[in-house]
């Protein structure tokens, strides 16, 4: 006798119970504190904040804990929370030139005002597993050079002073900045919308696209003009006060890529820019973003669009990992109604073919 597949409700509740148990793991092992994730898995926190589009270290750490370390799941949790928050307004544009820099490197100049500051980086570490980390122990305080009091101008501003790089278009305070969390994505997309999309795009997707431009699918001849990471003050203009008040500071990574120059008979040749910005310390994503940003400007510079990274609809429609993971994983949901329709058609087609092959048999029946 056929037993209907009932009990969905109980099955769901039981599955969630299992998940909670699995999340906790062996109860003999101390439970992970959110502070530990925040402090010791800080780059995971940075990525979740960036792609979750919400600067809240503690909440991101909690989401990572809840997601059992699945970062895309954690990003999704943060996004779903973020969308319920009221929006008071928009901050003033950030001044990354005034960043309290913890890391700043340029690949285009050997030395420059403010110097090269390596900061906390994996670069130049030998990727040998450090078995000493298995044992707990104190880390000796790191030695740092005295902080210079000199300014640390952006490299692109230095190049810009010689008029050798395109100028960023001046901001228009009366033109609203695009916001894809409030308006559906439309094409063609202006650069502000593209940058917003890339800023929350999946790191792996951006990395692969950026990489593809280096391998010839829409080459842009990039140089890292500068990567800087550090703290920037966020200001909010208060209507009642008539001036901007600081809300606090956030950690940012900014990458300015200096690319293939463009010019014409009338216009002197200049380098072009690709821009990447990320919450926290996310160098890989900031660099990838700047490569893709520049590639997406192909039309602006009259370049032939032949690589996927130059294709705005392709890139912007597929960069969001919350959308992507949802739709890919929805294939887990039951599809038996549609499958049944396909089965019926398939059988009919096979019968038709068999009938054609043996018409006499059918006639006999």
């Amino acid at each position, binding site marked *: *006798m*056929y037993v*209907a*597949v*009932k*009990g*969905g*409700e109980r*099955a*769901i509740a039981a599955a969630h119970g299992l998940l909670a148990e699995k999340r906790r793991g062996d109860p003999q092992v101390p439970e992970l504190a959110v502070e530990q994730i925040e402090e010791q898995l800080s780059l995971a926190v940075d990525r979740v904040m960036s792609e979750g589009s919400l600067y809240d270290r503690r909440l991101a750490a909690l989401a990572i804990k809840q997601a059992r370390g699945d970062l895309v799941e954690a990003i*999704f949790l943060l*996004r*779903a929370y*973020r*969308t*319920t928050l*009221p929006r008071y307004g928009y901050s003033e544009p950030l001044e990354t030139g005034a960043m309290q820099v913890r890391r700043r490197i340029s690949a285009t100049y050997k030395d420059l005002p403010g110097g090269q500051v390596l900061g906390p980086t994996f670069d130049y570490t030998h990727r040998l597993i450090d078995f000493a980390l298995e044992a707990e122990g104190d880390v000796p305080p790191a030695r740092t050079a005295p902080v210079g009091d000199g300014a640390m101008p952006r490299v692109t501003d230095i190049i810009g002073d010689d008029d050798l790089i395109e100028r960023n278009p001046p901001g228009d305070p009366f033109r609203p900045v695009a916001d894809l*969390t*409030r*308006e*559906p*994505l*439309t*094409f*063609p997309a202006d650069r502000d919308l593209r940058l917003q999309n890339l800023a929350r795009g999946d790191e792996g997707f951006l990395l692969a696209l950026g990489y593809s431009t280096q391998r010839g699918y829409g080459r842009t001849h990039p140089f890292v003009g500068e990567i800087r990471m550090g703290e920037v003050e966020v200001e909010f203009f208060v209507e009642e006060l008539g001036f901007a008040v600081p809300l606090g500071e956030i950690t940012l990574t900014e990458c300015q890529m200096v690319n293939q120059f463009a010019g014409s008979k009338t216009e002197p040749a200049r380098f072009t820019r690709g821009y990447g910005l990320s919450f926290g310390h996310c160098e890989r994503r900031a660099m990838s973003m700047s490569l893709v940003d520049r590639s997406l400007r192909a039309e602006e510079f009259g370049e032939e669009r032949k690589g996927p990274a130059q294709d705005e*609809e392709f890139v912007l*429609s597929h960069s969001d990992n*919350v*959308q992507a*993971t*949802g*739709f*890919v*994983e*929805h294939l887990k*949901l*039951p*599809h*038996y*109604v*549609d499958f*049944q*329709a*396909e*089965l*019926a*058609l398939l059988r009919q*087609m096979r019968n*038709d073919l068999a009938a054609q092959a043996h018409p006499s048999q059918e006639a006999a029946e």
Partner: protein
Amino acid sequence: MTHAATRQAYNFAYLDEQTKRMIRRAILKAIAIPGYQVPFASREMPMPYGWGTGGVQVTASILGAKDVLKVIDQGADDTTNAVSIRQFFEKTAGVATTTETTKATVIQTRHRIPETALQAHQVLVYQVPIPEPLRFLEPRETETRKMHALAEYGLMHVKLYEDIARHGHIATTYSYPVLVAGRYVMDPSPTPKFDNPKMDDCAALQLFGAGREKRIYAIPPHTRVVSLDFDDHPFEVTRFHQPCALCGANGSYLDEVVMDDCGTRMFVCSDTDYCETRQAEGHRGIMNQEAAE
């Protein structure tokens, strides 16, 4: 969190009122232009994209405290995702829910239209994965919007014609394209084409929500909905060669259930409410004879 605590932490039916207004505006526009895909600023929902976020947002925006909600997936009320969405609204809106098609005022569905004819006081909300009927013929949104604007649907007819040339008939069994009110070609969401005739001249309002793709479209009550076809190859619904094994219904959409590993199959109504109602009325199928005795 208890349901009461959830309701305190979130607005009625989860979405804030500003978002609901935005969605209602999109719905009104969609009703005004039947079959036209209205872009809307879809929100992240606490369930994944592709799992009904569009339908959930539409339902959340139209739901009132007195509504009675039914949620089905593959025609069934007890499929896991239908259970999950129903629980979501029980938790966030506290509305009454039902599995009975006739008692519901709002029915959210994935992949099916109930067998029981819908009434004027009901709204059917479809969950839509890919709202663009032309998407698999033309991947670019900029192009497909142009094609809709110009009612340039030749590509779709060519596709259907090629099906006939290759297979002898139109080889589209679900998401079968329809022409709404003589103007827009529309994707009925991946419902089987068996359900297409139910959309035509339907007394209920039909709303379609695509969350990930950020589109809403609608079929107002009693609108002409025609499945695309050719004079010499008219549209045909899928027919089953046996009645439901549980309720004996002829002419309902059937699911094939694998009984063992020796090729035994049974066919039962995909619409569980329809099937159960019929059984309650005393109808019996071949696999259900002993129960009747």
